[in-house]
């Protein structure tokens, strides 16, 4: 009897608590993807090119973030299961009244939680493995990393870590359930559903005033942001953030009242179908939801901002590698005694890197100083530079030193530093390897340093990868969190208004019309915070672009596309699940 009950309940809870399931699955999926970074093509590429330290740093940072993400997810899942318990408290009360022991009821809940959690965990992991591959392909494309044949890989440590993390959360949930059942009084459990939220009536005129004040505050905050820019963090910056947040709060607090007043003044609109009911319903719920709507709007803003900026910045940095260094290799050495001659090419050849073989074009020359202390370059060295790489980079080199060209063999000039510049011939990877080996020790110099295009590119890419992954990770977590909180709120509201929909049904409002009314309410709850967050984000991104534009160009199209895609997938998924769940709850009541 007991197991039958549990299995039956699990079957139902899959249908009824889709949002809980979705949150656990999304959480698991995210957690796995970002803990399994070593399976990512870009990360593999970096570690196979002497960037293990960077990769280690990235993974460490993501690991630290994961702790934060764990707390967010734990809170979310606890919140979701709280909703689940509240919805079921009457049923639990009935079990108790029928003579089931408290521990039996608790065990029933625990069994349900365990099974639901296990299935969600499995689904989330499967989704994570697939998504991890998709992300790998996407980022490899973004960084133009050569993709060796498609490799399907699963990270066992990440699997283990994810399972451990979520088993921890589920234990917390079970503790919570056990606690709830043991603490609650029977009478409270039985009465749970009857307690209706108190309806506070607020003056509509006040709402209109508050709404206008909220809008004014937002406009002031926007103006400050656009004129001051994003990066001036001082007293006024916090005033701006405060104004923006307060404006958002007032906006949501008064919006429903404002809408109601607006529609009431248009009788044709107000007294049409269920419009009156929908608006009143929205207005009644706003007292309990405006705070969370504000938080959700700001979280969405963070999510949108982080995702868009990280993807956008990422493409920007990509164009910077080419500008920093022109040749594949640049080696600079200082002689032991000023004026001494260094043969860098010979030294490299001795180290196993033969410029004649490995390079398509190369040159080595000294930078001199004349008696006046001005930097000089010999005409013949300049000519060699030009013939190897052309006029433009040669002039750029001159300009960077403010050097002048002198004729002759360097009489009266002192060699300050010696240059070796080269482009690889053949396989750049192999040449780079040989060069790095040879450059490991160059004898008889007073010091030397080198940069290769590949290493600069690699370092830049490392930074980009870091920014991108952290941005996506945080962005999606915030997105999931906001959507899940919204969804749960809407569902508990649907449960609270079950009685109202029953009355509507009796009055002869068709199921289609009732469903539409539910959808509109869920839509308002999801769309309004998103709409305001988008407006915030557009203003914020305009200010942010001004900052990023100093570093490079933001690829607005790519960043918008990725952000939009994520928004639609996560937010849209929750929206649909909520519509579906709410309709179900209300259909069961009618």
């Amino acid at each position, binding site marked *: 009897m007991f197991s039958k009950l549990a299995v039956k309940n699990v079957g139902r809870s899959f249908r009824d608590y889709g949002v809980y399931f979705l949150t656990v699955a999304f959480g698991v999926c995210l957690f796995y993807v970002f803990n399994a970074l070593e399976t990512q093509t870009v990360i593999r590429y970096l570690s196979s090119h002497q960037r293990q330290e960077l990769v280690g740093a990235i993974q460490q940072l993501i690991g630290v973030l994961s702790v934060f993400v764990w707390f967010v997810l734990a809170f979310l899942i606890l919140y979701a299961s709280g909703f689940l318990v509240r919805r079921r408290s009457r049923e639990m009360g009935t079990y108790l009244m029928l003579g089931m022991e408290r521990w039996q009821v608790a065990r029933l809940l625990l069994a349900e939680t365990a099974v639901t959690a296990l299935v969600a965990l499995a689904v989330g992991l499967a989704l994570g493995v697939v998504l991890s591959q998709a992300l790998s392909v996407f980022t490899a494309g973004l960084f133009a990393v050569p993709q060796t044949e498609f490799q399907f890989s699963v990270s066992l440590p990440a699997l283990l870590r994810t399972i451990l993390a979520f088993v921890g959360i589920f234990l917390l949930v079970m503790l919570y359930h056990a606690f709830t059942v043991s603490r609650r009084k029977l009478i409270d459990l039985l009465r749970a559903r009857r307690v209706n939220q108190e309806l506070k009536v607020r003056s509509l005129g006040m709402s209109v005033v508050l709404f206008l004040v909220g809008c004014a505050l937002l406009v002031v905050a926007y103006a400050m942001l656009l004129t001051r820019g994003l990066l001036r963090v001082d007293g006024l910056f916090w005033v701006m953030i405060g104004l923006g947040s307060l404006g958002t709060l007032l906006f949501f607090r008064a919006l429903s009242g404002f809408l109601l007043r607006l529609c009431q003044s248009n*009788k044709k609109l107000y*007294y049409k*179908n*269920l419009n009156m009911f929908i608006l009143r319903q929205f207005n009644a719920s706003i007292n309990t939801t405006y705070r969370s709507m504000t938080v959700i709007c700001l979280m969405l803003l963070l999510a949108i901002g982080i995702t868009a900026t990280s993807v956008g910045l990422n493409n920007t940095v990509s164009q910077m590698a080419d500008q920093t260094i022109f040749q594949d290799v640049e080696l600079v050495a200082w002689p032991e005694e000023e004026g001494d001659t260094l043969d860098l090419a010979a030294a490299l050849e001795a180290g196993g890197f033969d410029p004649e073989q490995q390079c398509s074009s190369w040159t080595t020359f000294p930078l001199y100083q004349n008696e006046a202390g001005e930097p000089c370059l010999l005409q013949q060295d300049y000519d060699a530079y030009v013939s190897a790489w052309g006029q433009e980079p040669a002039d750029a080199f001159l300009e960077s030193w403010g050097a002048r060209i002198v004729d002759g063999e360097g009489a009266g000039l002192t060699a300050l530093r010696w240059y070796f510049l080269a482009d690889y011939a053949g396989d750049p990877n192999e040449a780079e390897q040989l060069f790095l080996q040879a450059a490991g020790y160059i004898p008889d110099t007073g010091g030397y340093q080198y940069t290769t295009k590949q290493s600069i590119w690699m370092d830049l890419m490392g930074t980009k990868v870091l920014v991108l992954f952290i941005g996506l990770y945080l962005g999606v977590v915030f997105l999931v969190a906001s959507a899940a909180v919204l969804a749960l709120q809407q569902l508990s509201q649907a449960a609270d208004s079950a009685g109202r929909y029953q009355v509507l*049904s*009796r009055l002869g*409002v068709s*199921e289609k019309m009732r469903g539409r009314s539910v959808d509109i309410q869920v839509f308002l709850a999801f769309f309004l915070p998103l709409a305001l967050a988008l407006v915030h984000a557009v203003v914020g991104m305009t200010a942010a672009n001004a900052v990023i534009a100093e570093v490079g160009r933001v690829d607005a199209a790519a960043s918008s596309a990725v952000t939009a895609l994520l928004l639609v997938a996560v937010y849209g998924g929750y929206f649909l699940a909520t519509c579906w769940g709410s309709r179900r709850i209300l259909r069961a009541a009618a």
Partner: protein
Amino acid sequence: MEQILKVEGLCRDYGKGTVTHAVDHVDFSVEKGEFVGIMGPSGSGKTTLLNCISTIDTPTAGHIWVEGRDITTLKQKGLSRFRRERLGFVFQDCNLLDTLTAYENIALALTIRKTPAQKVDALVRETAQLLEITDCLNKYPYQMSGGQQQRTAAARAIVTEPALVLADEPTGALDSKSARLLLERFELMNQLRQATILMVTHDAFTASYCHRILFLQDGSLFAQVERGNQDRKDFFRQIIGVVTQLGGDQSDVL
């Protein structure tokens, strides 16, 4: 007289295995402009019978005609339409939408029938006047007394001029003064608007406002009394008489 409601061989069974015959072969009819009561002890099937007529429940067997149309054959969509266009309801509780004002509650019955917006106001006010709730039109249900709430529900039930008003224990949750006021308004609705009312009650006093009373026991009709020209007090005594004579549970009836 035009026949508004005709019920024939109506049955409603509950449960598998051991079947409860909540309503067991019931036949009766209601004429236009009548005020009919259905009386019976708790569990006798009154609510089930009313739910079948109001199409909230589907009968196991039998037919129900409203204005000559067999509503037991209607499909889901037709049912909703029939309910909002031809019926009016007053229930014991759970009646008004707590998020709407009294005015809006009444208006809602009109808007879901797609009544033009400019006609709404006049209809709502006229009906509110009849039920003496003009003063609380702008109040929310929780700001009104139980009696005012039930009268608002009654106003909502008749504002659409339905063929039939169904009331399930409308005085059940009211004190005697409010109950009297509500019932007087029901009488007025019946007299001035020619509203046809079918009211279920287990209370003899409430029943004494009706023109005709059907007695229900264990799902079957077993008696019927008509008021004729007697005044309400005499009719009340007659009802008590029938109830005691037929061995009903006194305490349950009173």
